[in-house]
């Protein structure tokens, strides 16, 4: 069952409702599991209009649902899995304001990944983009990440859509700043990573991370280091430095690996599947960047200090 992933370009509340209400009702009619993940005030407007359907539609506020792209993929994956044997009909409106450039890029990549992750799910997703409010850049990339398009009342195959692997390769090309000279370095040797974990935990707490994000970071670093020990080529080690509110940990080894642009982005079905490790690392930190070339393989993990961790 193929995925229908469609961008909706709309202007104003009336137009928004005129497309989304019939869309959700159609999902109910076809006995799909219907979820509406929408920003306010449109979320409340939909609840009011569709109140007659009771609890048949599940509502989520985008502001809560779209906080970390890989978590959002996991949450949609959970909805798809727990709705079986029914397929999912989702109204899925991402949040585009409040991100820096790097974060926005990850959300764009997320929209592209939807096409791979849910390819065989039989789900339908309609992603509203407010064409009066969003930047031309966001509207432009929406066209590259959605195979279908609903705009000006016209329902079309979108010719500007780009295959997610190709799209992801483009995302990775432009990123990644250099390591500062002041970065601390610890070599990784021997199978026992106890000392490395203690070092990372100490740096995390010094940086002001709460216990939970610190434990998550330690788990992520441990996983990447264990991978390096298993598959990489010495020398291998960890660099760590502060970048404003971010604590950055980079694990590098001398091995040559050619990961796909989708590596670690495709949720496994269970911990038993290949790819579980890197996928989980992406969940445990705010951002994981992967760079592999002739000079070695480098995995950079970034965690932001927050007033309240989530």
């Amino acid at each position: 069952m193929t995925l229908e992933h469609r961008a909706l370009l709309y202007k104003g509340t009336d137009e928004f409702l005129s497309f989304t209400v019939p869309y959700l009702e159609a999902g109910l009619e076809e006995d799909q599991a219907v979820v509406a993940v929408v920003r306010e005030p449109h979320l409340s407007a939909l609840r009011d209009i569709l109140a007659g359907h009771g609890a048949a539609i599940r509502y989520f506020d985008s502001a809560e649902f779209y906080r970390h792209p890989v978590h959002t993929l996991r949450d949609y994956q959970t909805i798809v899995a727990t709705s079986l044997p029914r397929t999912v009909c989702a109204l899925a409106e991402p949040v585009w304001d409040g991100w820096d450039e790097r974060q926005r890029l990850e959300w764009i990549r997320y929209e592209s990944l939807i096409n791979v992750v849910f390819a065989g799910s039989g789900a339908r997703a309609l992603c509203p983009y407010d064409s009066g409010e969003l930047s031309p850049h966001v509207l432009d990339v929406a066209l590259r990440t959605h195979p279908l398009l609903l705009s000006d009342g016209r329902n079309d195959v979108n010719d500007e859509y780009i295959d997610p692997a190709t799209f992801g390769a483009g995302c990775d090309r432009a990123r990644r700043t250099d390591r500062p000279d002041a970065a601390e370095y610890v070599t990784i040797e021997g199978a026992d990573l106890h000392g490395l974990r203690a070092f990372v935990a100490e740096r995390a707490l010094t940086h002001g991370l709460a216990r939970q994000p610190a434990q998550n970071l330690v788990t992520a670093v441990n996983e990447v280091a264990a991978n390096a020990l298993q598959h990489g080529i010495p020398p291998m080690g960890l660099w760590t430095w502060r970048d404003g509110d971010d604590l950055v940990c980079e694990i590098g080894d001398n091995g040559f690996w050619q990961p796909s642009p989708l590596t670690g982005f495709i949720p496994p079905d269970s911990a038993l599947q290949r790819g579980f490790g890197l996928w989980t690392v992406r969940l445990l930190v705010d951002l994981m960047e992967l760079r592999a070339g002739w000079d070695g393989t480098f995995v950079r993990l970034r965690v932001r200090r927050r007033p309240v961790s989530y």
Partner: protein
Amino acid sequence: METLWSVRRPVRDLRPGDHAWLAYANEEEQRHVAGAFVRDGLLAREKVVYLAGSVKDAVPGVPSDVPAGLLTFLPIGGPFDPRAAAGAVAGEIEQADRRGLRAIRIAADLTSALRSPDGLERTLVFERHLERTVPPSTHVTAVCQVDRRRCRRAELEALCGSHTVLATPDPEFEDAVLKIVRTFHPAGLSLSGELDASRHAVLDEALAAALSRDGTREIHLDLAGLGFIDLGAINILADIAVRRAGPGRLVLDRMSPQLHAVLETVGWTMLPGCAVSIPAVLNSNPAQPDSPGGSPA
């Protein structure tokens, strides 16, 4: 009164002068802990004196070829006569001393004594005799046991208070970073320390042993003392859980909030077949891994 044990010692580490206590949850635990005490003693050619009801073959841990005269079974008759029993023990110690045996182990299953008329009082008198004999000694070690299922809480507490050391099972594995100990109620393993790739093989082995022992029962993993688990170990748990999905589930107990949150982040759908007990998360005030008197099941 709940006594907080200042000394918890695996049976292999009990020393002369230790007057230790074991309130076993079931026969398996008794066989495992008291059995190790008896076996280690006999293999080291120490004198072993075993007190229990009247069934001689109930002595756990006896190796096949015990040299004559090393093991003495003292039946606990009814009604229990604590002075006579203490006298018999003292006589065995004297005799062993005369024979030049370098160490003496006393293992007493006092369940039947406790269940006879005036059982608690009589048993406490026996314990006072033992307390005068064992702790000052440089070559006598004692382990007093009762079947916790057949005792009232007040009895357990009174008896437990007359011992200074708690006998615990020998760890299945222990190094500076990770410790794995069998648990009996519920059946499973208790993991403490840190679990990473360098110890996956150890975890695999301990789990395999637990599985072969426990057939189709649930296996519980007590994670109260585990400060770190890596993703590979989570994968191993998922693998076991999937193979056992059904009545004999793998149940994760008493995780730290941090560990639980890591698994939440990963998502429980990633761990099909793994069950989590309720409450699975330790509160912020973690208790002793086992409370001494414990609550009778």
